[in-house]
């Protein structure tokens, strides 16, 4: 084990542990922007710098291994001053429109600027590159005037989805995230899984499906559930505002998202708004003379009960069949077969397992 001191506390960690991990294991919070536990290290944003006694420069804690006898300060005056400057540098090219930003309430840049009292940037004078929002795809809003070049989206695309649709284009002040030839996502290998939106620490990437209806600061709750589409069984969070689903977010804790660790596909992340469709059925319907009319539950269920009982009496139980659903829950499928067998007296029950 390696013994080091962090903020005056003696801590032991296994060899190879980074200073950032050592802090995390011991409940010491370090601000990070480019760091993501599931992605390879970039060490580029420098937000996680700490002071290591005896070293001439501040070190990036995410890429620096803890060493025997190290003495680390995580919020010393020098560290705080440096972080403020870094935030100012980032703000120099970050379009400040927090009041209309889809990420308001869940933006790390906003949080850290708030924490360190950084209101504006001394470095904004030369202006920032202009990147109009032009990608017409219906899923992902790409506002690169808010991008802080942390490259988490690039790494997520490469390492989680393995689509490799985007990368860094250009150098320095003019560096930008782009597809090959800087085109639209639809013309790239992008599969619109939105893993890039999941990892973006700011408002550069956001969901167009949730735009204007559910920014993080307005959400009442995030309900952890299982996706309704294919059989993979991905865990996702339904974002709810005023008893309405307004978006989907990821839970990236493997203990709660055991299959997908937050990763989703385009249907899981962007295909939830059917729930709110005005075409949803909202009342029982009975067909009279070829036309549907609304009915009460009592009327509809009594009618069905009578018809099914009559058919059973007239033709026997095997004149009835039930098609259950691979979209319904286990509990509902159990009741469907119980109803078919115990109430109707037939084994004519099946579902679309074959289709």
């Amino acid at each position, binding site marked *: 084990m390696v013994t080091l001191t962090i903020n005056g506390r003696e801590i032991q960690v296994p060899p190879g542990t980074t200073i950032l991990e050592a802090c995390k294991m011991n409940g010491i919070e370090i601000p990070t922007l480019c760091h993501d536990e599931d992605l390879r290290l970039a060490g580029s944003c420098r937000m996680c710098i700490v002071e290591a006694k005896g070293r001439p420069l501040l070190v990036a804690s995410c890429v620096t291994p803890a060493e025997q006898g190290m003495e680390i300060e995580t919020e010393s005056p020098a560290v705080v001053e440096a972080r403020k400057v870094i935030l100012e540098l980032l703000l120099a090219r970050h379009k400040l429109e927090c009041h209309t930003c889809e990420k308001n309430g869940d933006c790390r840049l906003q949080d850290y600027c708030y924490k360190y009292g950084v209101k504006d940037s001394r470095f904004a004078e030369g202006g920032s590159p202009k990147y109009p929002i032009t990608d017409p795809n*219906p899923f992902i809003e790409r506002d690169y005037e808010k991008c802080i070049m942390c490259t988490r989206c690039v790494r997520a695309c490469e*390492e*989680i989805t*393995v689509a490799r649709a985007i990368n860094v284009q250009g150098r320095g002040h003019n560096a930008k995230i782009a597809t090959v030839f800087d085109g639209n996502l639809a013309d790239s290998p992008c*599969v*619109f899984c939105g893993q890039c939106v999941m990892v973006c620490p700011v408002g550069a990437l956001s969901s167009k499906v949730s735009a204007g209806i559910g920014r993080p600061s307005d959400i009442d709750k995030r*309900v952890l*559930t*299982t*996706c309704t589409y*294919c*059989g*993979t*069984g991905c865990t996702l969070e*339904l974002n709810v505002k005023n*008893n*309405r*689903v307004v978006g989907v977010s990821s839970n990236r804790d493997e*203990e709660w998202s*055991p*299959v*997908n660790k937050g990763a989703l596909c385009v*249907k899981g992340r*962007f*295909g*939830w*708004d*059917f729930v709110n469709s005005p075409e949803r059925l*909202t009342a*029982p*319907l*009975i067909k009279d003379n070829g036309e549907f009319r609304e009915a009460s539950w009592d009327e509809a*269920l009594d*009618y*069905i*009960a009578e018809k099914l009982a009559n058919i059973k009496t007239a033709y026997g139980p095997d004149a*009835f*069949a039930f*098609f*259950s*659903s*691979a979209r*319904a*829950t*286990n*509990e*509902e*499928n*159990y*009741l*469907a077969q*119980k109803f*078919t*067998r115990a109430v109707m007296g037939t*084994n*004519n029950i*099946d*579902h679309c*397992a*074959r289709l």
Partner: protein
Amino acid sequence: MTNSIAELEKDADCIFLIGTNTTENHPVIGMKIKKNVLYNKAKLIVADPRNIDLADYADVYMQHKPGTDVALLNGMMNVIINENLMDREFIENNTEGYEEMKQVVEKYTPEYASQITGVPAEDIIKAARLYAKADAASLCYAMGLTQHSTGTDNVKSCCNLAMLTGNIGRPGTGVNPLRGQNNVQGACDMGALPVVFTAYQKVIDEAPRSKFEAAWGVKLPDKNGLTLTAAINKAHEGEIKALYVMGENPMVSDPDLAHVEEALQNLEFLVVQDIFLTETAKFADVVLPAASFAEKEGTFTNTERRVQRVRKAVDPPGQAREDWKIIGDLASRMGYPMKYSSSEEIFEEIRQLTPSYAGMNYKRLEGRGLVWPCPAEDHPGTPYLHKDGKFTRGKGLFSPVEFIAPAENPDEEYPLILTTGRSLYHYHTGTMTRRSAALDKHVPENWVEISPVLAEKLKIADGERVKLATRRGSIELKALVTDGIAENVVFTLFHFAEAAANTLTNADALDPVAGIPEYKVCAARLEKII
């Protein structure tokens, strides 16, 4: 799946995909496979009539003719046996029927298999060696393998291959069907099948039937029921008089839609319970409004047998209700009280009657869920089956399987092979995805994929509207010219009611055991619209 999803990312050092377009139909599993191949250097074998995304990552890609899976798999086994690459110890200790299987496989030399499948013999040899020499080879398949008149044979061949090489019962191995719907595994586990109660306890067996009779307090029928496809046929013939459809859409999903429509019209009484007025619901006498997944509590069981919680986020719209409440209410009105106060109460009843779920309860399902079999409350669940080569029936049984051609083959009038499937952007009959604005905007209409050679021959341009016809009917849709498909094969999606692939498919070609329709092969003709 015999094994778990995570093993495809970490433990398998060879993955064989046959009849699964994983990155489109199980995208998150597809991501894990890609990761394993690119970053851990796992070997990848892909067999598919279409040059799917994952074929680009494969060490061997075999573009076999639709419906020739048995010949391909037998060809691989022939190589493995002749080159002595099989796992003799596993065969000896854990299986039976090897000699009979070997006899059948003998004539499927790579050259013979190549003649049937159209796959070069050297690719069959290469694939066989890769799979057999791997430390842990995982075989995954989906509907591309099963939706054939020989679907059961195809699956048996996969099992033969896995047992022959001892690729079962260890992490990273297994025979892994990737199931296409969120709770298709659970619906089967729960006995929503005509021949079994929960956990595959047979309705014709006295012991389980007595158990359920005692638990439910009623005498139960002792003969097998009808499969979905058979029930439609019986409705057509007038023997089925009443049908209750809960969350299914046979008017888009079933083969030969004209036939389905006649069957539904022929019913005396049709109830449809759904979240939308589906194509099927339009034929109903009564339509009941149900709650969506976001509006209820419960559990789903995924393709790796993991039972996970579904949690209510919002109230159902208007008077819509959870399916379990509706069925319970109806049963009670019919003189059989089913009064449950919660889905959890139903789950408690399920686990009493379902050995593989016996150790589960809602509290234990929080977080990671549990993978069945989980027979007791102190049991951790079972991420992979057949540990140490121990099978449910004792020894694993090899099945001698001969290649049988698909039911309907191309001829002069219908010279092409039509195969159907899904797009990444839509799900099944489109009831949900076509009402999800972004998905429907991105992929608003159906298409038929055709090879450049066929396009040239028929003078069809990319994007041009064409007529696709079979003996059952025809649809008009856009042509998509792609070099990912063989010259005499065309592919279309089945999500779109207005250009429904199942207008074209064959309701008469069913697997004799499973009753699954042959969606992946029928004879078709493509016409330019003048």
